[in-house]
């Protein structure tokens, strides 16, 4: 254990800030994302506490609007979108394909700096006085009416977008060009298929967000612009452009989570993923069809009925590959040998929560019901089931799974399981009542609300407190383990992936010798189990 690994090659600050090692850049991202996650989480907690009573008692309307806007912007662009790709992805992609690094290591570092520049700009907008447009920046409110720091916040998101693009570009080229000898496409771990699909969306959708925000900011700056209804401009054009990015962005958030789940489910049931090729292509199908559905955010906006019809149809279609994945994960469990370590608990929670989120997505794709449910708490509950119940759960699962590889230390299994179970219950208590609120007709982004909605709001706020505590727990026990935990062996889960074939933590050059791949992925068969691991 005295060999140099990527963490111990050098200890200077300079060696971290100027590193081109994908593993160190992943750690840089990880530290930044924890910071943003807790800022966004603090805003969420404040929102839920305010909503415990129908009146305004904690904050004024103005502050409330700034809180949920900040929560949305920070969580979407500075936590969810970069979360798995930029931390776990950055760390694991080269390891899983047996490469020395990503294709463009300096671009990778640059993308972190761009991300931080964007993040600081957004933080500045918040500290300077906040922004009250909601994360969707709808015109003409954002461009002509809001009295807050819209341009600065939009600039932050705009800048962070380039970081996303560079990461996506890097992953695409890396997965195409740097795979180890013998590692064909159908031998890739499914995590990489999903990251590849994610990268396609990052590269092709993000620029449209950039131009949209630029157009909006120009309109705000000059007081007249391309969406301005006073000169015949159409505010719905903004929504089309915005959702052309922001709906696929939902898949940016969930696809990497699905990828992680494949690794966890197969490892802890000691079986290959059922229907490998279907799951792999389902990722790409979601990425592709995901670009055809954006108009389902606009069923009541006054877009043409024909457009609504087409978008509703495509929205049902995009649910098919998601359903395929859920069925395949369940089938993977069949006749496995299931162990319920913390990562597996997260994976099982993911399947349940994602399925609820997906099914309620069908409710919203269904035109007539969407007319009632859109812009209510039903939507809020639905997308939190996907993004928090799905993505964040998968992220935590992946983090626990690869933690020994990343830090070379083992965490406390007892605390990890406790936190996982607490997160599951806290989450459901927070967000399930919101489905009911939405069906009852409580609109979202309401600071005060009619008293008959209070019961479910109190339950939701109570759940949020549990959830907040549960999310703080990993910070403590994982943080502790990173410095004081027991040393981890190279392959603590006894998994066949390439990333486990090098030491924990990996050396700076990843592999002592260039690995050569000779077998299919997820070969948890008898021959593999009999092999001596960690020799």
């Amino acid at each position, binding site marked *: 254990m005295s060999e140099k690994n990527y963490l111990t090659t050098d200890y200077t600050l300079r060696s971290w800030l100027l590193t081109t090692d994908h593993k160190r850049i992943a750690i840089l991202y990880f530290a930044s994302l924890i910071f943003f996650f807790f800022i966004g989480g603090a805003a969420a907690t404040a929102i839920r506490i305010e909503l415990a009573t129908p009146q305004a008692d904690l904050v004024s309307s103005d502050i409330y609007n700034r809180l949920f806007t900040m929560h949305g912007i920070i969580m979407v662009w500075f936590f969810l979108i970069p979360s798995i790709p930029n931390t776990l992805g950055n760390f694991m992609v080269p390891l899983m394909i047996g490469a020395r690094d990503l294709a463009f290591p300096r671009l990778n570092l640059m993308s972190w700096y761009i991300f931080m520049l964007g993040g600081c700009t957004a933080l500045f907008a918040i500290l300077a006085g906040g922004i009250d447009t909601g994360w969707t920046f709808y015109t003409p409110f954002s461009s002509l009416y809001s009295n807050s720091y819209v341009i600065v916040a939009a600039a932050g998101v705009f800048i962070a977008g380039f970081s996303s693009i560079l990461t996506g570009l890097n992953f695409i080229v890396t997965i*195409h060009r740097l795979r180890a000898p013998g590692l064909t496409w159908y031998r890739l771990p499914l995590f990489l298929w999903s990251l590849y699909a994610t990268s*396609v969306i990052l590269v*092709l959708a993000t620029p*449209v967000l950039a131009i949209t925000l630029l157009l909006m900011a120009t309109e705000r700056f000059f007081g007249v612009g391309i969406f301005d209804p006073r000169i015949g401009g*159409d505010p*719905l*054009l903004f929504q*089309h*452009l915005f959702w*052309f990015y922001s709906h696929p962005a939902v898949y940016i958030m969930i696809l990497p989570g699905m990828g992680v789940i494949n690794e966890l489910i197969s490892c802890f049931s000691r079986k290959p993923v059922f229907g490998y090729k279907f799951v792999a292509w389902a990722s790409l199908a979601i990425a592709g069809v995901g*670009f*055809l559905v*954006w*108009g389902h955010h*606009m069923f009541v906006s006054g*877009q*043409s*009925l*024909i*457009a609504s019809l*087409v*978008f509703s149809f495509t929205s049902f279609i995009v649910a098919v590959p998601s359903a395929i994945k859920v069925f395949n994960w369940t089938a993977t469990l069949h006749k496995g040998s299931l162990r319920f370590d913390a990562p597996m608990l997260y994976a099982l929670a993911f399947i349940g929560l994602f399925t609820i989120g997906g099914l309620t997505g069908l409710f919203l794709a269904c035109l007539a019901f969407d007319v009632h449910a859109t812009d209510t708490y039903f939507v809020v509950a639905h997308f939190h089931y996907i993004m928090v119940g799905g993505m964040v759960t998968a992220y935590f699962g992946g983090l626990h799974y690869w933690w020994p590889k990343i830090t070379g230390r083992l965490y406390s299994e007892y605390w990890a399981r406790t936190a996982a179970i607490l997160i599951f219950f806290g989450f459901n208590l927070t967000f399930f009542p919101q489905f009911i609120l939405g069906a009852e007709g409580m609109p979202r982004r309401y600071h005060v609300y009619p008293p008959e909605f209070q019961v479910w709001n109190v339950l939701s706020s109570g759940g949020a407190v549990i959830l907040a505590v549960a999310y703080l727990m990993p910070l403590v026990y994982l943080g502790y383990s990173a410095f004081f935990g027991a040393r981890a062996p190279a392959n603590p889960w006894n998994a066949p992936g390439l990333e486990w074939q090098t030491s924990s933590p990996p050396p700076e050059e990843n592999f002592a010798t260039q690995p050569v791949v000779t077998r299919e992925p997820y070969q948890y068969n008898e021959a593999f189990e009999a092999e001596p691991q960690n020799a």
Partner: protein
Amino acid sequence: MTQWRPPLALVGAWLGLLALLALTVALAYVPLGAGNAVVAMSIGTVKAALVAAIFMELRHRNGLTLVFAGAGLFWLGILLWLGLMDFVTRT
């Protein structure tokens, strides 16, 4: 002493592009009704294809590069098609 000369294909493409430019400007002044827009966009597409195939060397590239080059256009098509669908079918 011939190593500095540009290959004929490049010169041909350049002259062809300038000729197409002259053609498209000239045709813009011929009243064709809705046809003017079609002609302008078609000639633009031919010019872009010339640049891509010869200046950007796509004619020498393998399928993967072509797919990468085409992906942007394909998604642009999705954006324009579904985006315009709303505005064209509104009543």
